[in-house]
């Protein structure tokens, strides 16, 4: 059921109490850590009635501090102490990085600021150097200096968890359950990376690939690497020859000759390049994973109640997605959701990034080499051309137990 009626919402609220896990968003440090403070010069307003004119003048000759109120308790923000461009403009030595009070006064005078609006001596205080990114940051920073702050509704929904409806959380749990079963059935990994991967098309909820780590067979056969190649195979591509790939519920068990496989691949290419080839989905590796009973297919894109005026953003991205799908069919794993038993190593995390998955959910952190929260937040590293959203802690207890059992099994 994609639409949540008020009645459902009530029922699912009761479910919340029984759910053992909380999906914790893994956010860029700028959303987690407070911005640094910087030293700035403030002038003390001489006469209260001149406050508005002083703000007007200073804003026109020394623009900046857009994230802060320019004046607070008769203190007017003038300029950061480390504002190097002012130092150079006044023909002083560029080696001297910080701005002196005298230099600042000269600049103000040169630009026509009436210094008599301010008391003779300036003060130096600390204010936030960057804008707050979240309501929580804004609350803390505004104790230091009043802010101009406009919360980003999407970010706040990530933080408070309202990004997912109860029905979506229920589906997320079901898919993670598949990942847990897959890991239990087949995963052979190591301390750096272990577990399973499930790739899902959120539009119709269809599972496209289920894989468990098999590094005993091939050092690159980490779960996510396998899952990405299985999705490629669905499109008539793929690189790895699996000795025993099988379709879900393919009970015949007869291994196909390479010729047959080639014919099949060609057929797939011919018939379904432009549309999703979901007939064969999910592909599983190792084959034993096809025993897992799959959850009923339900769209993960529950209709979200949109508040206020913020609904233009998503329609725009929907349009882009639609034109992209027309242009080239589903490109790689664009738009897909991925469920991992454990936080991925850089190999797996970057494989999913190159594949352009939309969302990643994992159960437990990987303190050794995990790059989606533990060692770094890869999806927040500047320069990368694609960003996915990440949550940890989904079915955490079950995932932890499964990992312990696998590790125990593999060492014995």
């Amino acid at each position: 059921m994609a639409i949540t009626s008020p009645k459902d919402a009530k029922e699912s609220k009761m479910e919340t109490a029984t759910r053992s896990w909380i999906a914790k968003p893994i956010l860029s440090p700028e959303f987690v850590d407070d911005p640094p403070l910087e030293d700035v010069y403030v002038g003390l307003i001489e006469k209260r009635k001149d406050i508005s004119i002083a703000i007007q003048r200073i804003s026109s000759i020394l623009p900046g501090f857009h994230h802060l109120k320019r004046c607070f308790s008769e203190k007017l923000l003038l300029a950061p102490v480390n504002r190097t461009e002012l130092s150079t403009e006044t023909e002083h030595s560029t080696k001297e990085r910080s701005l002196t009070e005298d230099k600042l006064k000269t600049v103000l005078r040169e630009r026509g600021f009436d210094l008599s609006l301010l008391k003779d001596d300036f003060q130096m205080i600390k204010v936030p150097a960057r804008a707050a990114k979240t309501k929580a940051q804004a609350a803390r920073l505004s104790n230091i200096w009043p802010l101009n702050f406009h919360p980003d509704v999407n970010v706040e929904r990530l933080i408070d968890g309202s990004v997912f409806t109860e029905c979506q959380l229920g589906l997320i749990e079901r898919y993670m359950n598949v990942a847990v079963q897959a890991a239990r059935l087949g995963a052979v990994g190591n301390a750096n990376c272990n577990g399973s991967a499930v790739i899902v098309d959120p539009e119709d909820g269809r599972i496209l690939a289920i894989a468990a780590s098999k590094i005993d067979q091939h050092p690159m056969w980490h779960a996510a690497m396998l899952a990405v190649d299985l999705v490629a195979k669905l499109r008539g591509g793929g690189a790895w020859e699996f000795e025993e790939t099988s379709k879900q519920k393919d009970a015949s068990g007869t291994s196909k000759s390479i010729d047959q496989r080639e014919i099949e691949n060609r057929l797939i290419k011919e018939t379904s390049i432009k549309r999703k080839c979901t007939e064969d989905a999910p592909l599983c590796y190792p084959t034993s994973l096809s025993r897992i009973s799959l959850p009923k297919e339900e769209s993960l894109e529950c209709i979200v109640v949109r508040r206020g005026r913020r609904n233009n953003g998503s329609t725009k991205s929907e349009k882009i997605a639609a034109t992209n799908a027309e242009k080239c069919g589903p490109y790689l794993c664009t738009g897909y959701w991925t469920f991992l038993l454990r936080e991925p190593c850089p190999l797996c995390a970057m494989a999913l990034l190159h594949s352009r998955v939309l969302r990643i959910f994992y159960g437990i952190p990987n303190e050794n080499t995990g790059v989606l929260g533990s060692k770094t937040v890869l999806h927040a590293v500047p320069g990368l051309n694609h960003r996915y959203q990440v949550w940890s802690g989904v079915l955490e207890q079950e995932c932890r137990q499964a990992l312990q059992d696998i590790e125990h099994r593999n060492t014995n």
Partner: protein
Amino acid sequence: MDILSWMDVALQKANESLKVGEVPVGCLFVYNSNVIAVGNNTVNKTRNATRHAEINCIDQVLEFCKTKNLDYKSVFYDIDVIVTVEPCIMCMSALCQLQVHNVIYGCRNDRFGGCISVFEVPKLYNSRTKIIGGTRGNEAMILLKEFYKGTNPNAPESKMKKSRKKKET
């Protein structure tokens, strides 16, 4: 053969890659002074975004070890990787896990570079692998620029580009 000549072979492979519409990155794995793997990027051909030159070479080495009945771990341990572009975060992670001997690359990879440019993967693995960058980097860069001049027909339209264009107008 010296590094420059190895890199010449890698650049030829990158050029071949460009001609078939793949990202022009060429790579060789050298073991006991013999090239045991030559690869290029095959992402479009395989519809798999992880099929970078290095990953393709890794598969060839595993095949080589199977036919020669060698332990792949000890083979990788002695391998020198010659690649025209700095390995991405994914490939560098793979090479660190396999503990290859040296990685010698041409130009830097500002988009995905896993040695120094975007993220330093070796630090995560306490890696023994020695990394040497800048061997015939200009030639590698010219090939990349040639590729990115033409638009990748398989890539979806970038959201970034769209919003930027809007801001400009």
